[in-house]
């Protein structure tokens, strides 16, 4: 086999073994089916009880361009992306040279021996393996061979790192939903490769895995699936969407999962509808129509879609139609980097729509929270009668995360202030669609089909009085807009409070949100090692709850860490707490990659040193 000059002679002083603590990156070509191999590795490690995370760095392309998958194995439970690569597996001829350079000194480099390159590094362990051979020998049909070939590295790594074969089997089992044929075909290749490695490769690097007991209480999920499931438990009835990376899989998961959970086996009738619209304008238009008609309605999209929804968002805000809009953020402006992650839509979404608007946003920070906000968003939208934006991102939405199990909603559904026939019988005053009866700025609504002859109202984006009648009256306009401000005030108390993590000897604060959570948690440990204690506040919503103010007040300085260029959340905090602005510092990164803990800690140290 060894057609390449595999410098297996490059021996290293193998110091101690490094167990369950490394990052491994696999470079392949996209569309080559490597995802199954990568997920199998990730899942097997997870089932071994070791904290892991997997990040897919893929191009905006269907087939043929480089893609990398990074698995971080961390006995300490750090799940953020790291910039260092202890183990690299090269399967893509186009990136072989750069992949080789990625490996940290003392690390390990694996490659398929069909890639013929001179290898110029002797500070790392080098292993080559006959990737294509196992596929050929597997008896897989010719058309599937390239695909199965990627299983070779699974087998090789299993042997070299110590990944347990039955966990791999379990992963494949799950992946192929128990279908024997594909499981066997893949397992055969893996086993052949593992056996070959055992016989032909001698480990010269310190990296190993070993069983732990740290993942028992976790599941593995991507945020989009979690969101879809959350929506199902939230009683979603109408979802309209238009395909866009990285949001598509949210709607597609919904389509796939809702039937089994919601269909009545005794009836052919449905309790929901999911429509692929012709574009985002139609997607949100449909959802608003459905929200108006009394349904729990949602749409899911990403930046360009949000931009197209601008006019409709203003209508929903002003006509007070409950609707949930998931923005699985990717890098903008414009088409930007469609397969990279970002938190760049915070400001524009908050102010989405011409005229005065203040949009409510929920910001999940984990897959479990995607589930939770999946249902909670409907409660809030219906309670407030306003569009609720849930700000996820590509990293959270599309990557697999170790997550706490999803929890069944701890409160009954809140359908908000909606009146049906029975409710209207008891009304003492004439009902008015936009009357602020309770002083909280939130009016009562009715829905089509209500047979009370007083229940009908006319929804419109034009000026209206308390009875939803057309009005151009100046004072009426102003009063109604003031009521909407009051409603926004009321929104504060409905928002999920931020999560506070207190540190030892914490002098400084960190404020962050969303998928950066894992990087911040790790960065805090790094900072603590450097003697810098921190408190950490993870925001989960805009508007902010009172805890936010207190946190800023309580700290000399709070670093607002986010993944965009302009410090968008920092700006919102500035606007909310002008008097505290001097205590805030903005730290931003906007390279499209999941945030890296080391960057955070260094940036803070650097800033503190000033």
């Amino acid at each position, binding site marked *: 086999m060894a057609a390449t000059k595999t410098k297996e002679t490059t021996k290293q002083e193998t110091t101690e073994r490094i167990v369950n603590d490394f990052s491994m990156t696999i470079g392949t070509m996209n569309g080559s089916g490597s995802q199954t191999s990568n997920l199998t590795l990730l899942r097997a490690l997870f089932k071994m009880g070791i904290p892991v995370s997997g990040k897919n760095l893929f191009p905006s392309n269907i087939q043929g361009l480089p893609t990398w998958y990074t698995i971080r194995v961390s006995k300490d439970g750090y799940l953020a992306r790291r910039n260092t690569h202890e183990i690299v597996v090269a399967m893509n001829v186009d990136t072989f040279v750069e992949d080789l350079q990625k490996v940290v000194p003392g690390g390990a480099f694996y490659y398929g021996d069909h890639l013929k390159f001179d290898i110029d590094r002797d500070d790392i362990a080098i292993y080559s393996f006959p990737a294509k051979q196992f596929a050929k020998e597997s008896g897989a049909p010719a058309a599937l061979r390239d695909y199965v070939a990627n299983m070779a590295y699974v087998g090789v790594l299993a042997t070299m790192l110590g990944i347990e074969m039955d966990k791999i089997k379990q*992963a494949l089992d*799950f992946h192929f939903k128990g279908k024997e044929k594909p499981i066997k075909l893949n397992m055969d290749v893996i086993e052949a490769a593992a056996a070959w490695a055992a016989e032909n490769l001698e480990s010269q690097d310190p990296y190993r895995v070993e069983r732990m007991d740290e993942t028992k209480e976790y*599941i593995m*999920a991507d945020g989009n699936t979690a969101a879809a*499931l959350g929506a199902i*438990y*939230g*009683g979603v*009835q*109408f979802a*309209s969407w238009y395909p866009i990376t990285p949001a598509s899989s949210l709607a597609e998961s919904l389509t796939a999962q809702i039937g089994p*959970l*919601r269909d009545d086996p005794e*009836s*052919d*009738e*449905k*309790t929901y*509808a999911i*429509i692929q619209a*012709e574009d985002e*304008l*139609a*997607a*949100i*238009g*449909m*959802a*608003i*129509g*459905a929200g*108006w*008609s*009394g*349904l729990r309605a949602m749409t899911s999209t990403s930046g360009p879609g949000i931009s197209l929804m601008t*006019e*409709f968002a203003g*209508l929903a805000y002003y006509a007070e139609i409950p609707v949930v809009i998931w923005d699985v953020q990717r890098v903008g402006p414009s088409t930007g980097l469609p397969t990279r992650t970002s938190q760049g839509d915070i400001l524009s979404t908050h102010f989405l729509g011409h005229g005065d608007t203040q949009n409510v946003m929920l910001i999940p920070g984990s897959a479990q929270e995607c589930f939770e906000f999946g249902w909670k968003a409907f409660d809030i939208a219906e309670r407030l009668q306003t569009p609720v934006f849930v700000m996820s991102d590509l990293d959270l939405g599309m990557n697999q995360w170790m*997550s706490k*199990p*999803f929890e*069944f*909603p701890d409160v*009954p*559904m809140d359908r908000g202030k909606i009146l*049906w026939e029975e409710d209207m019988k008891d009304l003492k005053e004439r009902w008015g669609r936009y009357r602020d009866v309770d002083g909280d700025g939130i009016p009562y609504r*009715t*829905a*089509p*089909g*209500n*047979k009370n*002859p007083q*229940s*009908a109202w*006319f*929804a*419109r*984006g*034009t000026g209206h009085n308390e009875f939803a009648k057309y009005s151009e009256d100046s004072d009426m306009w102003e009063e109604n807009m003031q009521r909407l401000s009051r409603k926004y005030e009321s929104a504060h108390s409905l928002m999920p409070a931020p999560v506070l993590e207190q540190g030892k000897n914490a002098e400084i604060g960190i404020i962050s949100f969303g998928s950066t959570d894992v990087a911040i948690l790790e960065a805090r440990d790094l900072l603590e090692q450097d003697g810098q204690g921190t408190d950490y506040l993870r925001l989960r919503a805009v508007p902010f709850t009172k805890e936010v103010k207190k946190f800023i007040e309580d700290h000399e300085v709070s670093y607002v860490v986010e993944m965009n260029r302009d410090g968008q959340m920092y700006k919102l905090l500035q606007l909310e707490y002008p008097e505290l602005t001097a205590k805030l510092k903005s730290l931003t990164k906007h390279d499209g990659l999941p945030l890296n803990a080391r960057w955070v800690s260094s940036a803070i140290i650097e800033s503190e040193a000033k």
Partner: protein
Amino acid sequence: MSENVKTNGKPSNIKLNEIGLSKNDYRGQPTTLCAGCGHNSIANQIIAAAYELDIVPEDVIKLSGIGCSSKSPAYFLSRSFGFNSLHGRMPSVATGASFGDRRLKTIAVSGDGDTTNIGMGQFKHIIRRNVPMVYIIENNGVYGLTKGQFSATAERGLTLKYQGANPYMPVDVVEEAMASRATFVARSFAGDASQVKALIKAALSHNGLAVLDIISPCVTFNNGDDARHSYGWGREHNEPLHDFSFVPREEEIQVQDFTEGETRTVTLHDGGQIVLRKIEKDYDPTDRVSALRIMEQAYTDEVMLTGLIYIEPERPSLHDVYKLPLELPLNRMTEKELRPSKASIKEVNAAMF
């Protein structure tokens, strides 16, 4: 319909329909459209049709986009829920809205600008979806509400003050509906009250999207050259404040009933003329090829073909496709129907790996 009945013991000489409602129960707010606007005639026929069909007003939802035409839902069926949405976006809002309670009838009104300019995409796509509803286009060839610019249905060569001559091919609503394979396609003229009413009734009982292209003259802005001329100097000045100087207050044009197969010339407010031709009596509207043929013929003859041009009653509506419940409408479902059991969450977590 029963007439001059007594209800609730109170004597009344108002005519009531079978469900005991008077025509007043079907009216809306007083119109704020121009006197003589064709749109008002159409609103009146919606009122008449609903009244005569004994429809419960609360069983109707009415939707529109933005424009003079799109204001009209305010002028009929006050007791129905309504949604005056965004310019060009009524189709999407109506689609979603129709899912709340599938037992309700949906009546949607739009303008030619609303539907064929900004709304062209949504118009074409709602047809493909066959959403069960009546979709009326009040077609006047101009943007009434923004004061008289060309819409996409304006004839090529039409000349309007401030706008010059229209250089573009007109959109033919019926042709578009046919190209998108609509299941109900009709055309009428606002002044032909009985035909408009008959078509609205037919549309209300169609299980799918019914496209009604109703030519509805704008008395204020779509005034042919001659007519404009005859108004004299009143409009002949450049008025940046956009308040046109003269609006003729006239009665809405009404066409006397005329028989199928016949042709009738109608003189508009502005002195311009259109030629209406009613589809022949023995015409088979379920035959698509004939429909295309007579349309092409009408195009050649330069007549406006009116009547039910095409109908395909069998194609399932969107509500059928989505298997929406008939008994308990979606919007009355509660936690019981909507939230999976507490037990199920375990399985979900287990299935997550």
